[in-house]
């Protein structure tokens, strides 16, 4: 059993001479939430469209459930639910009627699928309001309902909280989390909102100007960018020697000629300082630091922040 649900290899998309997506290699693991983070126009939607086979791939490949979409559409699509950009529906029909059309076209087996899906996203069943009169938030919810209608194993959600109010965002976040934790769904979610990804995702991919800059698990990222002890000293090699010998510190990284980061925050700093001073090393600064994802994002995208 292969545990990678989505795998792309050197996925590239060019419009004329402009490269929108450049050699992206994504790996989405089964049962996890993968957050694709990037600014507006970074290429997130294009990547999702290529994965779904909605837009031709210029070069490279994208595999879903171990197969390429082309030719296997019927089998693979029934296992995927997706929202790409703002979802479109028939404006003259109500939400329920819209979903019924999609449910019947899919041949969904469960009789209460439409009702359940609407319940999950918090929209009324058999309402009289037509889609044309829906608010932006309701439209988005209906889009999500359509994506989960047929109980798919994989959800591909392109900015699902777009247009929702803060309470709506929190609700959507809750049930996305629940879908993953309770029902074991695999979810690929894109967003330009960093905080959203940081609370939701298990794995994260950071994309900027079509290039995947970083792909790692959230835990690893936190480890690297979360809490650490920053030690600024006059002599790095000597310090490391002391740290390794006397304190058995293995998890550290040297930043420059004077700075070292220690990721084991349980270390007794009093003892360390004492030991260093005894070895005639000047301690310029020592203390616990906390880097946010925001800082990290700025750093890897070359200075530009994100909302």
């Amino acid at each position, binding site marked *: 059993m292969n545990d990678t649900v989505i795998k792309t290899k050197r996925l590239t998309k060019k419009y004329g001479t402009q490269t929108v997506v450049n050699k992206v290699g994504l790996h989405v693991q089964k049962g996890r939430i993968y957050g694709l983070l990037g600014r507006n126009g970074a290429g997130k939607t294009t990547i999702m469209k290529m994965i779904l086979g909605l837009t031709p791939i210029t070069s490279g490949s994208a595999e879903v459930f171990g197969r390429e979409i082309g030719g296997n559409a019927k089998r693979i699509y029934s296992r995927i639910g997706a929202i790409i950009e703002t979802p479109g529906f028939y404006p003259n029909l109500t939400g329920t009627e819209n979903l019924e059309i999609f449910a*019947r076209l899919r041949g969904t087996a469960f009789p209460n699928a439409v009702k359940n899906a609407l319940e999950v996203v918090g929209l009324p069943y058999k309402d009289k309001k037509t889609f044309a009169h829906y608010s932006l938030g309701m439209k988005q919810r209906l889009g999500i309902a359509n994506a989960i209608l047929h109980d798919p194993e994989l959800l591909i959600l392109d900015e699902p909280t777009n247009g929702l109010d803060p309470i709506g965002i929190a609700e959507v976040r809750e049930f996305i989390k629940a879908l993953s934790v309770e029902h074991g769904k695999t979810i690929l979610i894109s967003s330009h909102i960093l905080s959203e990804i940081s609370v939701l995702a298990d794995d994260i991919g950071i994309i900027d100007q079509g290039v995947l800059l970083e792909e790692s698990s959230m835990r690893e990222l936190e480890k690297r960018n979360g809490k650490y002890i920053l030690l600024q000293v006059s002599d790095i090699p000597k310090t490391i020697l002391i740290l390794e010998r006397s304190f058995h510190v293995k998890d550290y990284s040297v930043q420059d000629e004077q700075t070292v980061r220690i990721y084991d925050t349980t270390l007794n700093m009093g003892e360390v300082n004492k030991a260093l001073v005894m070895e005639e090393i000047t301690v310029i600064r020592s203390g616990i630091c906390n880097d946010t994802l925001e800082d990290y994002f700025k750093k890897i995208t070359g200075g530009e922040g994100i909302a």
Partner: protein
Amino acid sequence: MRILLWAEFQKLRRSNIIMFTIFATILIAVIVLVSGITGQLAINSAGWYMTITQVWATMFVLPAVIALLGSYMICREEQDDTLKSLQLIPVNEIKLTVAKMTVALLFSILIYLLLFLITFLTEAALHFSALSMAVFSDFLKMYLLEGIGVFFAVSPIIALVPYLKKSYWLALVLAEVYSFSGLFMSMSNALKTFYPITAIFGVSGYYETTIQSRGCSLGILVLCGCISALLLKNLNHRQKE
């Protein structure tokens, strides 16, 4: 396929376009009747109303209305941005298009049936004694064949709309000029047989022609259908690339 047809009908719910086409059909009948009554023709000669209504309707109004209805349905998915969702189901696009065209054909027939019903009842009110079973069935056949014929004659225009990037406007102008040109084509016997709009009359039996030219007219309409099928098939290919 049945589900697709069902879905197409569902999509037309609450859609005003159906109301408007019915409204337009009734108004044509009324306008012809008014002009017929003021000109004394409708009252004096039995059968005039039923004959003239279908001619004017086919020459001026209904081809454009049916083209509008058809192109509205064809462009629907792109207009409402539902194509992505349908592709993900996945829905076979050729089947989807066939379903749409079938619904358009059904509507074309229904519109003509409605027109038949109105004109027949009016005729019955005006000259009840002149009506017979033969008149009824002859006219019913004529209207039915025209309903089918009009659909085939305008189908290339419907198929052309997606290529025009959602300009229904152009399609409408095209449909109107196309149907209205039938007036001039009917002046020459050869053109009358081969021009799609007048060919409808040849097939429906309004023009009294030979079997051969009737066959030619039928061939032309079938050719129109083939052209639109080709256009639509090509479109689906183009979208995939």
